[in-house]
């Protein structure tokens, strides 16, 4: 059973949804980043969504763009990110780890090569932000070959054809977009998610995690009430990194507090 499946089974038994924070690997530097990720785990994150910094992140708002720039300024490479995950995996054998990145970083070593390295680093899933279902074929094939779940995005405006494709190919979880636009905590999720969750259920998609604009415990609660299997919070998490660049201790304390609050909101009534 995959780590995602185990997680969803465990959460179902506990009558909880999943809380999945996102941070950029290497932000603000590799050592602090490892501490940040460990803090997220220790404070109750059910799974992790981790970015590899890219120079031109077209799906990201200012918060995550800046995180990528901070990491790139420190010379963080995709290889260094995977090395960090390998290290993380040694002491955290169970938590599902998802990568979120852009296609050009995959094309460099070649799709096959990248997925092989990711599998070796203990990665459970890969989401390529600028690869829609229509271009996903070689990515899906590599994912299958290396035992990685290719995460697909279900946007609010997707056609029936796209929903059907998600049903056919999704694995691990389905990234449900709460709204249009780019990542960012400034604009809250606006969609009535229940309709989209129902559509995903109809096509037998992997469990839906709601992302984009999730920054408060109430939104996590709402997502789960709407039928999502959990929620992903990226920019709100990264904002706490950015706000405390001069004080790592305080940064980790605030991140820990944030994760505990968000996780507490995943308890179903």
């Amino acid at each position, binding site marked *: 059973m995959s780590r995602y499946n185990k997680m969803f089974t465990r959460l179902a038994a506990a009558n909880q949804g999943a809380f999945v924070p996102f941070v950029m690997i290497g932000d603000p530097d590799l050592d602090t980043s490892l501490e940040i990720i460990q803090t997220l785990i220790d404070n109750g994150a059910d799974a992790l969504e981790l970015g590899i910094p890219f*120079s031109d992140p077209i799906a990201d*708002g200012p918060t995550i763009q800046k995180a990528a*720039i901070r990491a790139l300024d420190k010379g963080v490479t*995709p290889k260094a990110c995977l090395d960090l995950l390998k290290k993380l995996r040694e002491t955290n054998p169970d938590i599902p780890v998802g990568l979120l990145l852009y296609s050009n970083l995959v094309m460099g070593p070649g799709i096959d090569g990248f997925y092989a390295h990711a599998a070796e680093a203990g990665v459970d899933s890969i989401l390529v932000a600028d690869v*829609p279902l229509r271009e996903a074929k070689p990515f899906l094939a590599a994912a299958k070959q290396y035992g990685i779940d290719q995460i697909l995005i279900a946007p609010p405006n*997707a056609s029936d054809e796209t929903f059907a494709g998600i049903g056919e190919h999704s694995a691990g979880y389905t990234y449900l977009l709460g709204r249009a636009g780019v990542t960012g905590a400034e604009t809250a999720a606006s969609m009535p998610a229940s309709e989209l969750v129902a559509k995903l259920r109809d096509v037998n998609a992997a469990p839906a995690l709601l992302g984009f604009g999730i920054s408060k415990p109430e939104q996590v609660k709402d997502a789960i009430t709407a039928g999502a299997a959990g929620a992903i919070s990226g920019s709100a998490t990264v904002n706490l990194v950015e706000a405390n660049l001069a004080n790592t201790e305080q940064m980790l304390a605030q991140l820990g507090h944030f994760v505990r609050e968000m996780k507490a909101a995943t308890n179903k009534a």
Partner: protein
Amino acid sequence: MNKLDPKFGDYGGMYVPELLIPALDQLEQAYIDAQNDPEFQKEFIGLLTDYAGRPTAMTLTKNLVSNPKVKLYLKREDLLHGGAHKTNQVLGQALLTKRMGKTEVIAETGAGQHGVATALACALLGLKARIYMGAKDVERQAPNVFRMRLMGAEVIPVNSGSGTLKDAVNEALRDWSASYDRAHYLLGTAAGPHPFPTIVREFHRMIGEETRAQIMEKEGRLPDAVVAAVGGGSNAIGMFADFIDSPEVKLVGVEPGGKGIHTHMHGAAMATGSKGILHGTYSYIMQDENGQIEESYSVSAGLDYPAVGPQHAHLHDTGRAEYVSITDAEALNAFQLLAKKEGIIPALESSHALAHALNMADEAEDDTIIVVNLSGRGDKDLAHVQSILGVNFGE
């Protein structure tokens, strides 16, 4: 599913967030419908003729080429309203915007030429334009910023990333992913995700079609070569499209060699030979060994883009077109030569094509005919060139 082929060999495609796929599909459908709609064609051709000034002239240079038996023609896109070829496809896409029932237009611009073309088309057709421009470019291209604003466009400086054209494209794509319901992204070159490379080529196709008709009339035969500058590649693909199936016509694209392609200061994506994905399309791009996009450089802001349109990548690999590079210094020399010898001040972009065509003409056999796409005029470059040559130039 796509109705038109999104690829050129291995190149092209739609590498964008899933969220943008419906907007690109809508655009593809609107474009197909428009191409089959005589009313649309009539309106487009009407604007090109009565507003923009098509067909543009074809000028045989009188003094530029030393061998009197070699003919060098200029396709005068510099005479088009707006000062460059860009007006062609902008009018087409602006009409598509209206056809889709959208009221807003998003665009990116580097030097400001595509921004100016977008602003004029939106002013004419009653569309609301917002134009993303790198903060550095806003400073460097103040006259074009003023032009855009005069014509009612909102110019938004982009501070993220390097503050240049590629960042303006990123920001336009980000805007579009939140506004596709009411806004069209009027992409300015033959790059980006499908269907943009196809649409931009087809809305510039008349450059080559007119060239063919004009040269047949003047010379009774096709030219031996057509030469065009390549940044993203819109003027070049517009010139090439009608000649691709005429193998006797050599197609030559000229990339910006900047300070030399052995340095990092250039924009010759094909010359460096590395492939990847930028702004939604798989093509030749400038990147480091980790896949991070590198900054391009050229004296000509319009060629300063770290990728090239996917059809050019394909024409390169199949050998149908040849791609070379010309340095800043060579382009500046051609810029001055054309002014001095023919009384025409070309855009720095077009000066790259001209510089290479002059090299070709020097080595050509007798009775060779070469056509250069003079894609734009040099007014926008005057201050920049003056600052390079020195204010006391010519005294």
